[in-house]
């Protein structure tokens, strides 16, 4: 009846959890594809800035996704743009949560004046409307991917801090934290070893949400011309397509592939999140096993304890 289960290492546990969930598998495949494109793609395509032929050619065997209004290869721009956009997306997603966790958890854990001060800080950032602020900062600083990343972090960290502060406040009052304090653990250790691990699912969801936000906002700002328009990214691709009146001339191949990529990455990240949820919340896994057991025997999962009389 029982199988002996080898104690899984961290990584294989994650791989296993992703493979078990169909949604997470699809999400992981999508993200893996884009990461691969970002890593090796730029080595396989031509220089995205070089004019390669007549502007606005429709997709053909020579130029799979046609050419831009400047006569550049759309596929080359898309692939090279993937690297920049994905890199900024993931970096901002991580940093936003790191800053949010640092400030939010500190506020929640220490309370008192520290909390009052930090809460004031993130509340101010919460009331400032994000997009206009981003536009203003991006317009004043020298344009480029790094500036964009900075802008996105500045406008994006406050929500994470607020949510994590609330979580910390509730964990702070739990007995296991009191026990850790009494046993003489340092505040740093209590925060990193006792409190933060209880929020893993939240943190992972925040990184994924932060990445989705960063990619979307980044593309938006660049589309408005607030990035460095000479660097090939998904956003500047769209900026140039708009600049060359792609919609008016019906040159769909200059913007549709980029738009699709942005949508796909966002979609993939959200799907992946459902798989992570299950790792950090074992109860979800238990319930899934239970559902599968009932469905195999033709029973509906119900709120009241189900009765299965059919024998195996």
């Amino acid at each position, binding site marked *: *009846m*029982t*199988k002996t*289960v080898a104690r899984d290492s961290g990584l294989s546990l994650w791989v296993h959890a992703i493979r078990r969930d169909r949604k997470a598998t699809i999400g992981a495949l999508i993200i893996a594809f884009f990461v691969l494109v970002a890593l090796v793609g730029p080595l396989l395509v031509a220089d995205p800035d070089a004019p390669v032929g007549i502007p606005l050619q429709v997709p053909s065997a020579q130029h799979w996704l046609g050419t831009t209004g400047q006569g550049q290869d759309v596929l080359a721009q898309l692939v090279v743009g993937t690297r920049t956009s994905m890199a900024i997306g993931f970096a901002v997603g991580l940093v936003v949560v790191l800053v949010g966790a640092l400030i939010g958890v500190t506020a929640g854990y220490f309370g008192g004046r520290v909390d009052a001060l930090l809460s004031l800080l993130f509340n101010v950032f919460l009331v400032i409307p994000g997009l206009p602020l981003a536009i203003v900062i991006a317009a004043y600083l020298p344009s480029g991917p790094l500036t964009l990343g900075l802008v996105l972090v500045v406008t994006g960290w406050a929500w994470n801090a607020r949510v994590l502060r609330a979580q910390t406040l509730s964990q702070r009052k739990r007995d296991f934290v009191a026990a850790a304090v009494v046993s003489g653990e340092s505040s740093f250790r209590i925060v990193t070893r006792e409190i933060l691990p209880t929020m893993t699912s939240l943190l992972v969801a925040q990184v994924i949400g932060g990445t989705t936000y960063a990619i979307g906002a980044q593309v938006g700002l660049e589309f408005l011309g607030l990035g460095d328009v000479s660097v090939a990214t998904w956003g500047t691709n769209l900026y140039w397509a708009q600049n060359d009146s792609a919609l008016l001339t019906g040159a769909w191949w200059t913007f549709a592939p980029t738009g699709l990529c942005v949508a796909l990455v966002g979609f993939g990240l959200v799907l992946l999140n459902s798989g992570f949820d299950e790792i950090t919340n074992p109860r979800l*896994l*238990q*319930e899934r*096993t*239970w*559902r599968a*057991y*009932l469905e195999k025997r033709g029973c509906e*999962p*119900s*709120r*009241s*304890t*189900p*009765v*299965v*009389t059919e024998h195996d």
Partner: protein
Amino acid sequence: MTDAVLSIRDLCVDYVTEHGAVRAIDSVSLDVYGGEILGVAGESGSGKSTLVHAVMRILPPPAVIRGGVVQFEGRDILSLDEGELRALRWNRISMVFQSAMDALNPVITVGEQIVDTLTAHRTIPTAAARARAGELLEMVGIPDSRVDAYAHQLSGGMRQRVCIALALALEPAVVIMDEPTTALDVIVEREILNTVRSLQRRLGFAVVYITHDLARMLQYSDRVAVFYAARIVEAGPSAELHRAPRHPYTQGLLRAFPTVHGEEEARSIPGSPPSLVNPPAGCRFHPRCPFVFDRCREVVPEFVSVGPDHAAACHLLG
């Protein structure tokens, strides 16, 4: 003794895990008679709590009932649908949970909670429900001036009394008490159990009383059923069981309590209860039993009647 109000036959409950099903209740049969206090004793994890939650059909996933019959007021609870269960729960069978703090809503007064319970099941004017709430609180020994108190304003014992008042609000035939006094000190515990017993004698409901405190149980129950590793090993009138326990496990449990006069030293049962993932064959107590012989290791013992309404599952008796 009157007829059984609640009659459990061959109930099986499984917990479904990734590596197969674990049987938490294995072919358990038990009767609850009208107006009695039935004690259910057993170690942690022996299945006593699972049993009563299964009877209410409130075991959360991953539990599955794998067979049996739970006959109550002429109907099999295991064949009822959601709506019928809703009408039955609390109305006819209610429950007092272990942690009164968690069972009470912190943001509404205890009076309102009783009113909610009454209006959810009965068509009754709010004023009448409020009056009844005060009456119920008085009944369990709380002055009705506390009807507007919140749970956190009451002591642990008072909160548990409120839970008992809630359980009795709809005058059910059976009240299940799942370790109702485990979180309380012994003096409050005794007061509450005395209250329950006098109410039970007066109103005539039956109580299924779960605890791991065997001494308390023998003192307050009319009959006792002893659980060991998902099965019942012995059931009988508590006086009988106390005087002449027949199953080696029950004997071991009773010897594990020091006597008041100290003429006999308390002795624990060697070993620890088996894992239900891979339970021992035959009698589940055999690895710890001082009287074990070959048959115990292979054959599951049948229940043998050893007195009026007293039965035990042991090969020594067969």
